[in-house]
C-alpha cells in the first residue's frame, strides 16, 4: 500500500549504490566517462541532428548513439521493434539502466514480476518525438502515419516502461520533473523510499536528449555561452547544453551484503527545497541553496568541514554561479579555502533532467577512484568563490562528497555520498 505506510521500529536502513550506468558525450559507460571526467576532457561539437545554423550558438555535447551503443541496446530484452521506436532520450535511458543493472548483479526472476521501483528525472521526456509530431501535423495535416505511436512514446512514463521491458522486471514508476534538479531529486526520492521502508531496492536516475526546442529556448534566453562554458570563472558568459542519462541501483546495506554485492558508495544525505525568488533566477545570495546543503549535511550526520569535494551545479551562467558560490562559501566558512569544487558541466554540458543523476555518478566515481574532476578551461575565479576550483587532474583522498543541482522554477537539491571501504 502507498498509504498508510507501515513504519518499522528498527533503525533507518543505510542506502548504498551497487551499480551505476552512464552515457554522455564523453562516451558510453562507466569506464569512458570516468576517464573523461578525470582528465577534464571537453566533449562539445557542432550540433548535427537538427539545424542550428540560425541559432546564436551552434555547439553542444552530443552523444554518439551509433555502434557500439546500438549493439548494447540489442543485448537488452527489448525487441528490435521496440528499439526502433526509441528516441534518443529513451535509448540513452535504457543503456544507462542496463549498465547499472549488470554492474549491480541484479537479476530478473524470469517472468518479469520482480518488483523494483523506478524513479526518473527528466525535463523533456520524449520531446524529440513531440517535435516530429508537431512538424508533421503542421506541414502535412492530413498525414496520420506514425502520429498515434509518437503520441504514446512521447510520454515519459512510457519511456520508463521501456526500462522495465529491457531489464525484465516491473514496479511503480515515478517521474519527477523539477526541471534541472530532476535527476538529483530522483536519486534523493529513491533514497527516501528505501529509508522509509517502502522499498529494499530502487532504480533511480535521469535522462534528457538534446532537442531543437530546448536548445533554442536556452539560446533565446542568451543563456548559452557563445565562447566556452567556464563555470565560476569571472569572465563566464553562459552554459553549454549536452545530453545523456545516468541510472543507479540503490539498495539497503543489508540487501547488498546478503547478495555479496560490491558496494560502490553510500548515499548518506539528501536535501531539497524551493527557491521562490524567480522562475529562472536564483536568489542572489543563494539562501535556498545554502539551506538545502545544510539539510543534506544534517541528514548525513556530517558538518560542512567533513566534505572533501563539491560537484557544483555550476552552469556557467553569471547568476547561477555567483549565487552558488556565495552559498558554498557561506556553508564551508573557514573550511572553504581547502574545499575543492568543480562543475563537470564544463566537460559534458548541462544535461538538464539528467544532470543531477550523471553528477551523482561522477561523485561515486571520484570516491571509487580517489580523484578530483577538473575544469580544463578556467582562468580567473569569480570574487564570490572563497574555495579553489579544480583546474588540473589530480588524485585526492576523498571520504565525503556533495553534489548540487538546481532547476528552473527554483527546486534545489543536494546529495551527499560517502566512500565505501
Amino acid at each position, binding site marked *: *500500500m*502507498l*498509504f*498508510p*505506510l507501515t*513504519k518499522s521500529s528498527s533503525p533507518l536502513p543505510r542506502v548504498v549504490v551497487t551499480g551505476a550506468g552512464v552515457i554522455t558525450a564523453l562516451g558510453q559507460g562507466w569506464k569512458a566517462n570516468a576517464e573523461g571526467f578525470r582528465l577534464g576532457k571537453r566533449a562539445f561539437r557542432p550540433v548535427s541532428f537538427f539545424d*542550428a545554423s*540560425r*541559432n546564436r550558438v551552434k555547439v553542444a555535447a552530443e552523444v554518439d548513439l551509433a555502434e557500439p551503443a546500438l549493439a548494447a541496446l540489442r543485448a537488452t530484452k527489448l525487441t528490435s521493434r521496440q528499439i526502433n521506436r526509441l528516441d534518443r532520450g529513451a535509448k540513452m535511458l535504457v543503456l544507462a539502466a542496463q549498465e547499472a543493472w549488470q554492474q549491480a548483479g541484479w537479476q530478473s526472476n524470469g*517472468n*518479469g*514480476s520482480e518488483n523494483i521501483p523506478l524513479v526518473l528525472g*527528466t*525535463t523533456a521526456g520524449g520531446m524529440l518525438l*513531440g517535435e516530429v509530431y*508537431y512538424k508533421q*501535423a*503542421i506541414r502535412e*495535416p492530413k498525414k*496520420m502515419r506514425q502520429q*498515434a505511436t509518437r*503520441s*504514446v512514446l512521447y*510520454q*515519459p*512514463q*512510457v519511456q520508463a*516502461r521501456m526500462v*522495465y*521491458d529491457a531489464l525484465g522486471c*516491473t514496479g*511503480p*514508476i*515515478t*517521474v*519527477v*520533473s*523539477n*526541471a534541472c534538479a530532476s535527476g538529483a531529486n530522483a536519486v534523493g*526520492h529513491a533514497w*527516501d523510499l528505501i529509508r*522509509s521502508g517502502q522499498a529494499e531496492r530502487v532504480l533511480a536516475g535521469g535522462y534528457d536528449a538534446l532537442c*531543437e*526546442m530546448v536548445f*533554442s*529556448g*536556452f*539560446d*533565446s*534566453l*542568451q543563456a548559452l555561452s557563445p565562447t566556452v562554458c567556464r563555470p565560476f570563472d569571472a569572465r563566464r558568459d553562459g552554459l553549454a547544453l549536452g545530453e545523456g542519462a545516468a541510472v543507479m541501483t540503490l539498495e539497503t546495506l543489508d540487501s547488498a551484503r546478503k547478495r555479496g554485492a560490491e558496494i560502490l558508495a553510500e548515499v548518506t544525505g539528501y536535501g531539497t*527545497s*524551493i527557491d*521562490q525568488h524567480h*522562475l529562472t533566477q536564483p536568489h542572489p545570495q543563494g539562501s535556498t541553496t545554502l539551506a538545502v546543503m545544510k539539510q543534506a549535511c544534517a541528514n548525513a550526520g556530517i558538518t560542512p568541514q567533513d566534505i572533501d569535494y563539491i560537484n557544483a551545479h555550476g552552469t556557467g551562467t553569471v547568476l547561477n554561479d555567483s549565487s552558488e558560490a556565495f552559498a558554498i562559501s557561506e556553508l564551508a566558512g573557514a573550511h572553504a579555502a581547502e574545499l575543492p569544487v568543480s562543475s563537470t558541466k564544463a566537460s559534458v554540458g548541462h544535461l538538464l533532467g539528467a544532470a543531477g543523476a550523471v553528477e551523482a555518478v561522477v561523485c561515486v566515481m571520484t570516491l571509487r577512484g580517489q580523484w578530483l574532476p577538473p575544469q580544463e578551461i578556467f582562468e580567473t575565479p569569480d570574487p564570490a568563490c572563497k574555495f579553489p576550483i579544480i583546474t588540473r587532474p589530480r588524485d585526492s583522498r576523498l571520504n565525503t562528497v556533495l553534489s548540487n543541482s538546481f*532547476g*528552473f*522554477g*527554483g*527546486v534545489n537539491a543536494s546529495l551527499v555520498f560517502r566512500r565505501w571501504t
Partner: protein
Amino acid sequence: MSRVFVAGIGAVSPAGWNVAAFREALAKNEPLPEQSLPRPGWEKPLPVRTVPNPATRPEFLAHPRLRRASPITHYAASAVLEAIAAIRANPAAKNLRLGLVACLQSGCVQYTCRFYDETLKNPATASPLVFPETVYAAPTSHVAALLENVVLAYSLVGDPSSFLQGVALGAEWLTENRVDACLVVGAEETNWIISDAARHLDGSAVISAGAGALCLCRDQSLAAGIELKTITDAHTVTAQTDRVSAAKAMRQQLESNGANEILADGSGISSRTDSAERAAWNDWAHARISPKRIFGEGMMAAAAWQCVAACDAIAVGRATAANVSLVGFNQQAIGAQFVRA
C-alpha cells in the same frame, strides 16, 4: 501510524472556477456543452471542453509571477487557493510549512507549441519570455511563489493515475513531519495538438481543461471531516500485466465500507479506454460518480476531479466513504479510499 486528513478541496473545470460550480454540474448529471477548436490544416474543428472565463478577474492574477503564466498555472493556482482557504482563515494555522505536489500529464502545452512554432519560423526571434513557461515545473514554481511558505515542492509527470502517487507523496511528507500541510494539485490546459493526439488513440475523446486540488493535513482540528484511509499499491501495466489485470488488482486492495459508500470512477464515453475499469467495478452496487462524463477527458485534472468529487460527497454527507479508481492510460492503476473523519 500517522493519520492524514483532507482540510479542503478546490476545483476549476469547464463548469467554472470553484467547487460549487463543479458540484452543481455533477448534480445535473448532463455532459457540459462542447466548444470547437480549430485545427490547422483541417476544415473540421476539434471538440473540446474549455474553462469559461471567470465572472470576475480573480485577485491572485495580479501577482507579478502570474502575469505571463499560462492557463494551466491559473487553474492550478485557483484550485490550490480554494483548497487551502479554510486553513488560511484559521488563526491557529498561521505560518504552516507547506508542501506542494503538482501532477501533470501534458503540462504547459500552449506555450510549448507557441515557442516551438516560433523556433521553426526563426529561432533567432523566438521569445525568451515564453520559453521558461514551457517547462513542467513552471506551474509549481508560480503556485509556490503565490503561497509563499512552501518548503517542499515536486512536479510529477505521468498518466492520470499518478495523481494518487502525488497524494501518497504528500501524505508521506506529512507523516514524516517535513510539512504541516500539503497541497496536491492535478492540472491541465488544452490546445489543438493535445486534442489531436488524444483522438489518434480514442476517436471519441473530448479533451477538457482545469484543475483539482486537495489540501492534506496531519492535525485533525484543521480537517474538513474527511480522512485519507488508503492508497493502494501502484499496479503497473506491463507486457505481463494488462490494464484489466492492473485494475482488478487495485480493486481488490480497496475494502468495502458498507452501504453508504460511493465510487468516483474514471469512466468517460469511450468503451475502449473505459473497458478495464468497467471490468474491475462491474459488480459495484452502490452510488457512482463519473466526472469525465460531465466534464470530458481532463487527464490529470480529471484524476484530481475524481478525488475532489469523492471528498465532496463525504463533506456534504452523501457518503461516509468514497473510493477513487484511477486506471491510467499506459502507466498503472491506483485506487484510494477516503472516509468521514
